[in-house]
């Protein structure tokens, strides 16, 4: 099913609105469905992210339980009355996480850039987003390379003091080399007319179909109805 990334963004937003404007019990059902959808979609190379998001959500649940239920007043015990207070933010965080996981699993970066170009978003902003998403994995890769090189020179990952020293040994060359790389690439992209007012093109074909229109109408209607029910009930 080829759905426009803009439609997917609206569907995710509507999901969060519907989930958060429902009663606690209904929220639990809606968010469980959301997680199921997101987990099914986030297969393949998104499995790490799936694991990370689930782990973070469960850790949030654990700490919310501790924050709202644990008491030292009259001995260490758990107060069951705090469960409902802990459940609301747990579900709220779950709604955000499942929506984000679903978006990440279903929108390819090139489709996102294509959509932004079609929306006439200023090129420097698109370049900025592209560069951030490029740098994040690149920094981790480069950081590992530098760490291995420092270890080959005799740096040992032993003791907290040594590991803290390792942070400087990795970050200093990482930053100076990345800045050097950035100087070259920014000069190249400026020379290729990043700031030229001419319309930009992209190779990824994305378009709004009848399916997109139907999905947009349905998701927006559901969101509006759930907000109205929340206000008037």
């Amino acid at each position, binding site marked *: 099913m080829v759905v426009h990334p803009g439609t997917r963004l609206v569907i995710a937003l509507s999901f969060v609105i519907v989930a958060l404007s429902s009663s606690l019990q209904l929220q639990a059902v809606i968010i469980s469905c959301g997680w199921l959808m997101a987990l099914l979609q986030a297969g393949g190379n998104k499995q790490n992210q799936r694991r*990370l*998001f689930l782990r*973070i959500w469960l*850790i*949030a649940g654990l*700490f*919310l339980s*501790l*924050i*709202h239920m*644990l*008491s*030292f*007043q009259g001995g*260490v015990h758990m107060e069951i009355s705090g469960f409902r207070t802990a459940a*609301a*933010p*747990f579900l*709220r*965080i779950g709604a955000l*996480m499942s929506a*984000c996981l679903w*978006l*990440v699993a279903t929108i390819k970066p090139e489709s996102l850039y294509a959509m932004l170009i079609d929306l006439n978003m200023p090129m*420097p902003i698109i*370049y*900025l*987003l592209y*560069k*951030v*998403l*490029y*740098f*994040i*994995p690149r*920094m*981790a890769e480069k*950081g*590992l390379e530098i*760490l291995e090189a420092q270890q080959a020179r005799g740096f040992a*990952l032993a003791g*907290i003091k040594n*590991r*803290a020293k390792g*942070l400087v040994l*990795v*970050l*200093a*060359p990482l*930053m*100076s080399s990345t*800045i*050097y790389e*950035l*100087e070259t*690439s*920014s*000069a190249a*992209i*400026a020379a290729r007319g990043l700031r030229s007012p001419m319309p930009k093109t992209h190779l990824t074909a994305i378009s709004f179909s009848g399916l997109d229109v139907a999905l947009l109408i349905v998701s927006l209607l559901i969101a509006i109805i759930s907000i109205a029910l929340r206000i008037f009930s």
Partner: protein
Amino acid sequence: MKQTTTFHIGFLALCAALNVGIGAIVGMLKLPIYLDSTGTFLAAALGGWAYGAAAGIIAVLIAAVIIAPTAPAYSGTAIVIALVVSVFVRVKFLRSFPITIIGGITVGIAAAIVSAPVTTYLYGGVSLAGADAFTAFFKAMGNTLMESVILGGLATDPVDKLATALIAFMIIKAIPQRVFGRFRNGELFTQR
């Protein structure tokens, strides 16, 4: 900021990526800290508060889809960090070691106080950071949720921001001198 060039946009992206990606490097070294404002510190120190705030906001937006979807609510914290750094940089922050220590702790206190209402009212007291264990402890001791979140933040944020300031101090020492000339506050760092 001097006239914004493609390099400035790229450096902004680098600072935002540093905020998000430093977690992987810290993880490789198995260190119990976050340092997720290092890029904001660098951007605010070199390009002023607006440049730093932009780095911080972009980082939380990107972190939302990569690490924690709860992050964008902390955009206000990123702005406050950039503001405090840009004020302190006038008095040798990230250039003099003692001022860097004082500034780092101050930024940590400011960040803890600004983050507290978001953590309390939006996420029920959980920040998905090390402060949560402290928050649970202070809440169990009988404090209100807001007090517990503030106390939890004050127990962890100054330490983390102090470490962040020290790392930013070291990174600034490693950046080639000629790069400073491109930034509004660059002359402050070329006179070291």
